[in-house]
């Protein structure tokens, strides 16, 4: 690894963490798409700033682009407040318009300005190490590393000091407002932070991949934990992981670094989405199947309990009586037998003592409308789950 490679990975990791922190709150506040809007809509601000400063890392440009981002948020909420369109439509109307203005501005001045739409949209982190920051005659590293680093430092400070407020207003906006934390102030504070982060990440990863870096680590972490602190750490971790792995993937394929980082994020998300122990696709699918079978089992036991006549309790009769598929019926019978709820003699089904106790308790729970008690009952009685 040479120096430039290390620096690129460092910048990528810094950008990833800087995006993951506000991203976590945006995902939790159901405002994920506002990042999409901001990242596109700041283009005119960046272009205007670039016309003036000719430097993507100039403070003036960052301020102007950030203001454009906040303006976008304001425009979206204003449009929404007129009641003429829904919020998502408002987002979808505002950002393409602003983005178009930016693209046209670039196109009109294409000859005298060195700013490429592709570069703005897609970013090129590979060039970041070439733009050095020289302080007191000493080369202290790439400029964008410092810029992103400072923004990250500020977000960590904000997070440290306003963690309580942010947490409360995210999970219980009503309570937080009644306690006197201004929802407007917190909202626009978070939006400003998001805008600044987007602006400084822009050069490295481009407009659309900022969205990926904001949303994907947070969404992946959200599928693994319900603890806000853990979620923040996890999403930062996923961000760093994908930044470094993405760099090497790009190195191998000789392709866009930003695209590779996003691809790694996508693979991470897909993996967690499928295999997360509690909330993954497979786990949820399995739980739903289990639930279905267990509900069927209870229905079946209640049915047996209600019928004393031998003819009503015959296996074959049951199948047409409850109107189950053979597969379902077999699965239910098997589960009941394995749990010692029923005896089958000569094709006649009868409840065991344990089955009787279970059924009776289930009936009381159902009669008292106390159905959540059934879950704990299952824990007590079941040897094998569905």
């Amino acid at each position, binding site marked *: 690894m040479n120096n430039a490679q290390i620096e690129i990975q460092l910048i990528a990791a810094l950008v990833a963490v800087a995006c993951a922190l506000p991203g976590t709150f945006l995902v939790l506040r159901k405002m994920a798409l506002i990042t999409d809007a901001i990242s596109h809509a700041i283009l005119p601000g960046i272009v205007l700033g670039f016309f003036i400063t000719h430097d993507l890392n100039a403070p003036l440009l960052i301020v102007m682009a950030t203001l454009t981002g906040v303006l976008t948020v304001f425009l979206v909420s204003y449009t929404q407040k007129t009641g003429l369109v829904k919020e998502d439509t408002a987002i979808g109307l505002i950002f393409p318009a602003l983005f178009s203005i930016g693209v046209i501005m670039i196109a009109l001045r294409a000859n005298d300005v060195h700013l490429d739409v592709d570069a703005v949209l897609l970013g090129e982190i590979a060039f970041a190490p070439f733009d050095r920051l020289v302080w007191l005659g000493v080369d202290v590293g790439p400029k964008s590393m410092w810029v992103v680093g400072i923004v990250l430092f500020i977000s960590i400070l904000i997070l440290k000091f306003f963690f309580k407020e942010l947490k409360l207003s995210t999970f219980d906006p009503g309570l937080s407002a009644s306690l006197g934390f201004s929802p407007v102030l917190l909202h626009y504070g978070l939006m400003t932070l998001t805008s600044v982060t987007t602006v400084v990440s822009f050069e490295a990863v481009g407009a659309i991949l900022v969205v990926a870096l904001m*949303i994907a680590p947070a969404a992946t972490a959200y599928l693994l934990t319900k603890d806000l602190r853990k979620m923040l750490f996890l999403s930062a971790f996923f961000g760093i992981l994908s930044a470094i792995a993405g760099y090497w993937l790009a190195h191998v394929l000789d*392709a866009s670094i930003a695209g590779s980082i996003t691809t790694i994020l996508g693979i991470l998300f897909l993996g967690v989405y499928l295999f997360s122990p509690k909330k993954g696709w497979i786990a949820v699918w399995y739980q739903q199947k289990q639930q279905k079978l267990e509900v069927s089992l209870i229905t079946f036991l209640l049915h047996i309990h209600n019928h004393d006549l031998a003819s009503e309790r015959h296996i074959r009769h049951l199948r047409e009586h409850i109107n189950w598929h053979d597969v379902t019926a077999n699965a239910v019978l098997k589960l009941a037998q394995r749990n010692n709820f029923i005896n089958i003699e000569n094709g006649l089904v009868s409840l065991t003592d344990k089955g009787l106790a279970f059924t009776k308790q289930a009936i009381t729970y159902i009669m008292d409308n106390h159905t959540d008690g059934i879950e704990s009952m299952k824990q007590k009685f079941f040897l094998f789950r569905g």
Partner: protein
Amino acid sequence: MNLQHYFQQLSTDYTLLIITLGTGILGGLCGFLGSFAVLKKQSLLGDAISHAALPGICLAFLIAGVKDTHWLLLGALVSGIIGTVWIQGIVSRTYLKQDTALGLILSLFFGFGLLLLTFIQKMDNANQAGLDKYLFGQAATLMAQDVQIMLWVSLISLFAVLLFWKEFKILLFDIEYAKTIGLPTKYIDIFLTSLIVLVIVMGLQTVGVVLMSALILAPAAAARQWTNKLWIMVLLATLFGALSGISGTALSASYSQMPTGPVIVLSASVIVLFSFIFSPKRGILMREIRFRKSRRAIKLNKALSLMYRIASKHENVLAPHGKRMLNDFKGYSNVIFKKLEQQGLINYRQNSWSLTEKGFEKAANLYNQLGKDE
């Protein structure tokens, strides 16, 4: 070339005609189907789909090895549909919300597409040139063959919408009712979404991945402001879409260096802005005017009822009273006196006023109603 020049050229320049026709049809079709997307509250689905189509385009190119429009569109269609299905999967299987799911699919698919795109570009295949035009689109690459496909898709959509008009309408406005009367809502929904995916994929070549969603949304959002009837809205949206397509092409052809996609989107945005402000029923301007009017009416009524209270304490209710009697009334001003006199409710002289009979009657009515409320 300027605008006038453009229209002169239109009759002689075949390429220009094709491009204008293409963007016009595309805009119209987007508005047409976009109406349904907006009313289904899936405004941003288009954004996600258009981004999700990028890896499909690249993969189709990698597999086929040639830049054949049909192949690329097919690839885009497949990956657009995969994206849509995955969004639904995320929303129904996990507790991530719709917005997160949209943002995820949008950015992750796009990122993957970008990886493939840059990978292809380095492959040293002369064929690949122009693949990145799908990012921003380039109307200039439209050919008669593309316009033909657009026409076919338009006809199919038109036919489908006419055929299932009732079903679509119920699905949009009362999905629960649609379910209870036994409509296969799931399949109608899938069918409608597929049509939308199809039109988005077709538009990618012209407007590009980034701005495609606006073309779906904007005409429909503008049309919504002018009417409460579905068929009028669909018709208007089609018109608005076609108009923005054509005017965008005209403008970008008239001024050099103007990219077509963004200009089309800006034209549509201007239509939206105009509709938001000037629509007679919902528009911001008319709403403000109505608001002011009713505020003035309330002021007049307030003044009148105060006068009534003073006048009714005297034997002759029509007797004149000094202007000063009203001094404790905050909203009192000469304008109000004049307005009331214009309406024939009071007689107004230098320093005194008196209720007319008509004014007394109206005020009495007002006063009674006021009393009832209290």
